[in-house]
């Protein structure tokens, strides 16, 4: 068996009486896309925050490429190869599109200890940034201010920024949120093209997208994983239908 890129073992996080993460364990093999679905408040964002190091779990372990990263701070995890995108777009609106991506790409090309030479004049980080921008289809927007982009383009930029740090594992927090059908289709095919190159943990509400992309799906409810398996397993699972898919299915019917 291949060693997993990410394995989470018995993760717990409580906020007062509320178990936001309740004994969560999961394992993501290299190159695959693991989706986490669940109703609002199921603890999906709390889980991502712990994986990224923004929140510290009460107990449990997070192992990344065989290394226990549970106690590491966010920047250290990024250097090991974890990147995330945000559910709420959080770019620097006054930066150009290129500068936003450069922020991420310069990390692997010397870091921030450069004070005199303009950041955009470093050919290597620039070309990597442009490469990521063309992957997401924003190459012709590189000189625009990020704040001027449409919502859909900003979501694409989020993904480009996550990609630009050359991650081994990408945590994608609802990359399809607020996208129109066409834009969503574009994002799904973008994520599809990344499969095999980057390991991804996808949090998403859009069932169609999850079923089209995921190698493995875990269903989170009240902080606990109530089901985990292939797309077909999850579709058939009666518990999942009750907890989540039932209402979604009705809405789509």
């Amino acid at each position, binding site marked *: 068996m291949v060693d997993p890129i990410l394995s989470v073992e018995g993760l717990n996080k409580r906020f007062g009486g509320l178990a936001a993460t309740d004994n969560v364990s999961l394992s993501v093999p290299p190159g695959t896309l693991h989706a986490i679905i669940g109703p609002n408040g199921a603890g999906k964002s709390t889980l991502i925050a712990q994986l990224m190091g923004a929140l510290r779990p009460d107990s449990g372990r997070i192992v990344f490429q065989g290394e226990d990263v549970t106690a590491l*701070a*966010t920047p250290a995890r990024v250097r090991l190869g974890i990147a995330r995108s945000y559910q709420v777009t*959080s770019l620097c609106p006054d930066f150009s599109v290129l500068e936003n991506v450069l*922020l991420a790409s310069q*990390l692997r090309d010397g870091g921030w200890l450069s004070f*005199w030479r*303009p*950041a955009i004049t470093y050919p290597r980080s620039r070309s990597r940034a442009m490469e990521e921008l063309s992957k997401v289809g924003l190459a012709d927007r590189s000189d625009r201010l990020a704040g001027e982009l449409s919502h859909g383009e900003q979501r694409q930029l989020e993904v480009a*920024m996550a990609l630009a740090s050359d991650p081994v594992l990408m945590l994608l927090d609802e990359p399809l949120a607020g996208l129109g059908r066409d834009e969503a289709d574009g994002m799904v095919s973008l994520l599809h093209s990344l499969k095999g190159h980057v390991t991804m943990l996808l949090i998403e509400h859009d069932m169609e997208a999850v079923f089209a992309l995921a190698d493995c799906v875990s269903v989170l409810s009240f902080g606990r994983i109530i089901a985990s398996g292939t797309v077909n397993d999850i579709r058939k699972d009666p518990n999942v239908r009750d907890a989540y898919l039932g209402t979604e299915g009705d809405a789509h019917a």
Partner: protein
Amino acid sequence: MRKQLVSFAILIGLLCAVPPIAYWLDDPFLLSLASRCLILASAAVATNLIMGYGGLISLGHAVFIGIGGYVVGIASHHAFNDGMTWLSNGLLQLVAVLLLSVLVALFVGLVSLRTKGIYFLMITLAIGQMFYLAAVGAYDYGGDDGITVFAKSRFLGQALSGHYLIYWVSAAYLTASMFLVARLSSSRFGLVLRSAKVNEARTRAMGYEPFRVRLVAFTVAGVIAGGAGFLMANHAGFVSPAMLHWTRSGDLIVMVVLGGLGSVFGPLAGTVAFLALEEVLSGITEYWAIPVGAILIAVALYTPQGVMGLLSRRRNHG
């Protein structure tokens, strides 16, 4: 980038025009006022680096002006009273200003930069007042009354005095510090500093430690303000605890906000506006701070980009 170089060329042109005008008007007071303005502006440039680009509002930045000033003052005191004339060596003094500014900035930064917003403000205020009270309590160096700088700093035998010399040195210092901050802001360091201001969590999620980046910015800003204090002491011929009172830090903040946060030329524009308002309004009323406050509120509400924002808006509309 090219646009910025053109702006710098215009700035240098304007700076060079002041001495001939003062000469022609035979008004050395004008030149002295201009020098004071340029020196304050370079301290505002330093404040803008941490506040405009870094989002850190410090009520203690005048401490660094005080450091620069007191190095000159204390050196002059001993050179004049104790015959230790070697202390007047300007280069030696500048090295002392540099070292002390870096040390104090690292100390203040390590303590305060772990906090944010109002807590950062309060800690810098407290540390600033600590230095202020230390200066007040330094009876050997005049205490509350301060020190008159009889022995100006000397470079290769030339004393840093005379309206024209001080003006040129101040103009060069301001231009250099503005250029430095302009370069810093578009460097890799600058991108991370500005990004941490907009979104700290995101910046961490991109692999950066905002604390370290801010500490560097804080230290550079301390050194720039220290240099301004050095010039201020030589220009005014006098240093006193008032130089590092927290209200002086407040003035710097007002200048930066008036001029436009995070713009290269904003601090100079803001300082000119601030001193002009002070000059004009203090002639009309003793309570000149009240209308200045009202103007500041109007700026914050209607043109958050300050004077520079007004200028560029006009340019954009034709």
